[in-house]
């Protein structure tokens, strides 16, 4: 049967395609060392340790393993940015998954922690690192338990720690809990947080912490899914890896499709082969929009990505194509909205996220995101002003000057503005808040106008649509 729900990995749907990172999800005990070893676990590490470190690095570089955290930078190339002769170097694993719509790293950490640990070990070996930090999002209690358990098992069995598998190779892997801050997913903020500071992004340049990172030392920051691919590459070879997916983006990716689809789920999909239409309507995938409604819009790559509409359904799940069309695949988070969705409301909720999560370091973002949120809230509450639409775009222009990436609209004769946006801020959080605003205003301006001019929403006081402020956000 095509498209089987796997009960032990909540949300994961086995679509019968090739599996690089999700091969153990079907087992209830997929997180144990025993299951890992009986299904080829640590084979990649064993093979890696028989080769010189530089060889292992070359294998990963040849596989063109693109980073899965959002930017899509090739991991093998990133690994090569460590300056010669500077020691120590660190590996930091970014498991602070919090992008709206993203649900894949939690699955990988909860369901197959040994695969991730093996990926870390191989990366450490290839780069000459003796210390790895696994930064797991604070809210993911089960993932923390599973990784702690797996590390304890792996240390005891000689896979991690002193003299890995009886060789001279020695490395410590340290589990580190986050404590609730989206911005810590930005790699320099992650490093700040790991040093025991407030998780605020560092000023660039240097653009990559590979030059100056943790404790001022060369540091490689990789996403969980990126490293989870590494054991397979070492076990099967770069060539086999490149046979999957497209030339520009080899291999598979986990995509979390949420929202108004019949079968929401996390799917492992070959990159560049499947289109959004296949994914939303295919039998092996989401099987269509709920109640057979019409699709209104979808977010192709997490809360930071400009939105797509029905005319973009035939774009393949390929970073290059999606980028050229004015958005990004980002962290593999796809949110589908049907015709019943209130575009202004959805836009407000996404902007509210960025307003709450802005770290406050750069003024355009700190002031801009919360201002945008307030304007959208008053439009929803029936107190919008006719000038508000232009004001929203103007604030956006202060955070991200110039033409903001948008999808093409052939009906209106509009070309796409390719990703990424320009920014007046240190990190992309502020500019990300503009994505939902420009996307929705450009396509659904009439919905904004209708809310602003329709006076009948005002008379009775109802609960404000802008949600209540919680105590927890006081610090951010």
């Amino acid at each position, binding site marked *: 049967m095509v498209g089987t729900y796997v009960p032990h990995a909540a949300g994961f749907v086995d679509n019968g395609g090739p599996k690089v990172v999700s091969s153990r999800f079907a087992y209830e005990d997929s997180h144990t060392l025993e299951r890992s070893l009986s299904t080829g676990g640590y084979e990649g590490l064993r093979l890696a340790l028989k080769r010189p470190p530089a060889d292992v690095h070359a294998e990963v570089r040849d596989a063109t393993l693109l980073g899965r955290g959002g930017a899509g930078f090739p991991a093998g190339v990133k690994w090569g940015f460590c300056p010669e002769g500077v020691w120590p170097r660190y590996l930091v694993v970014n498991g602070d998954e919090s992008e709206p719509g993203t649900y894949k790293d939690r699955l990988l950490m909860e369901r197959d922690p040994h695969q991730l640990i093996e990926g870390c070990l191989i990366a450490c070996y290839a780069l000459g690192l003796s210390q790895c930090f696994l930064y797991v999002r604070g809210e993911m209690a089960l993932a923390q338990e599973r990784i702690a358990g797996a590390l304890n098992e792996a240390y005891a069995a000689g896979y991690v720690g002193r003299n890995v598998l*009886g060789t001279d190779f020695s490395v410590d892997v340290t589990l580190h809990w986050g*404590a609730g801050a989206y911005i810590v997913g930005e790699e320099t903020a992650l490093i700040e947080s790991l*040093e025991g500071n407030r998780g605020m992004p560092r000023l660039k340049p240097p653009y990559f912490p590979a030059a100056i990172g943790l404790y001022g030392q060369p540091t490689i920051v990789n996403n969980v899914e990126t490293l989870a691919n590494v054991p397979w590459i070492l076990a099967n070879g770069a060539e086999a890896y490149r046979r999957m997916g497209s030339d520009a983006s080899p291999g598979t990716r986990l995509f979390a499709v949420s929202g108004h689809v019949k079968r929401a789920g996390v799917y492992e999909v070959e990159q560049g082969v499947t289109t959004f239409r296949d994914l939303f309507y295919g039998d092996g995938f989401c099987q269509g929009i709920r109640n057979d409604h019409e699709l209104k819009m979808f977010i192709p790559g997490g809360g930071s990505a400009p939105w797509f509409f029905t005319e973009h359904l035939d774009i393949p799940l390929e970073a290059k194509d999606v980028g050229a069309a004015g958005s990004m695949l980002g962290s593999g988070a796809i949110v589908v909205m049907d015709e019943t969705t209130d575009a202004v409301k959805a836009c407000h909720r996404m902007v509210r996220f960025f307003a709450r999560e802005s770290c406050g370091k750069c003024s355009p973002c700190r002031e801009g995101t919360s201002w945008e949120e307030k304007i959208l809230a008053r439009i929803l509450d029936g107190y919008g002003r006719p000038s508000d639409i232009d004001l929203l775009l103007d604030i956006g222009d202060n955070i991200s000057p110039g033409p903001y990436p948008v999808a093409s609209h052939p009906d209106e004769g509009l070309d796409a503005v390719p990703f990424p946006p320009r920014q007046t801020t240190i990190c992309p959080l502020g500019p990300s808040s503009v994505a939902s605003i420009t996307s929705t205003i450009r396509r659904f301006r009439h919905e904004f106008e209708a809310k602003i001019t329709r006076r009948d929403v005002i008379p009775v006081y109802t609960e404000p649509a802008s*949600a*209540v402020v919680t105590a927890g956000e006081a*610090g951010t």
Partner: protein
Amino acid sequence: MSWFDATRERTAHDILARYPKPKSAIIPLLHLAQEQEGWVTSAAMAEIAELTGTTPAEVLGTGSFYEMFKFHPVGTYLVNVCTNVSCQLLGGEELLRHVESALEVKAGGTTDDGMFTVEDVECVAACTEAPCFTVNYRYFHRASNEDFDEVVADLRDGRSPIDRGAAGDSGELPAHGTLGRIRQHVPDDRRAGVVPPEQVDGAPMWMASMAGAPSDVGGEEG
């Protein structure tokens, strides 16, 4: 005399031993303090400052950035309802309204009996399983109002609702402050060795010996 109890004092030193610089342990130690008291007290921050060679102000400075650290008492059970877009589309806001009326407390508040604190939170990474709420960071997927009521009834009657939650989690649902019930522990004889960066003066020793493609890869199963 440590502010931490005897077991947690050992855990604290276990944590400190894993970092090249003690300041990195501030966040894990704040979690440990919260595990002991349910929230972060001034005395706890003073102790953490002592352990990490920082000041209490620096500990507060770091800790106050992060949402999960509470600097005032909160309920035994922290109910977080996700209302971000994926959940909003499938009724996350309605679920939050239900939670608020069922517990008679607004998001951000704590029930009079000190049992529940409700929060309206951002994406918790369960987007395909919307709407979703967590209790002390334990997930409940595809939750209806009735599901929530059952979880509350369980907790009020002293039963663990964890089996109603996402597949894979089991056991007791610990009080607020306890995150992972399993902690990393590295036996001394297995540790590769954590060295402050300023004391490292070259590539790891193994780099030289492994560069020539060793073939003696062993290990328990190998």
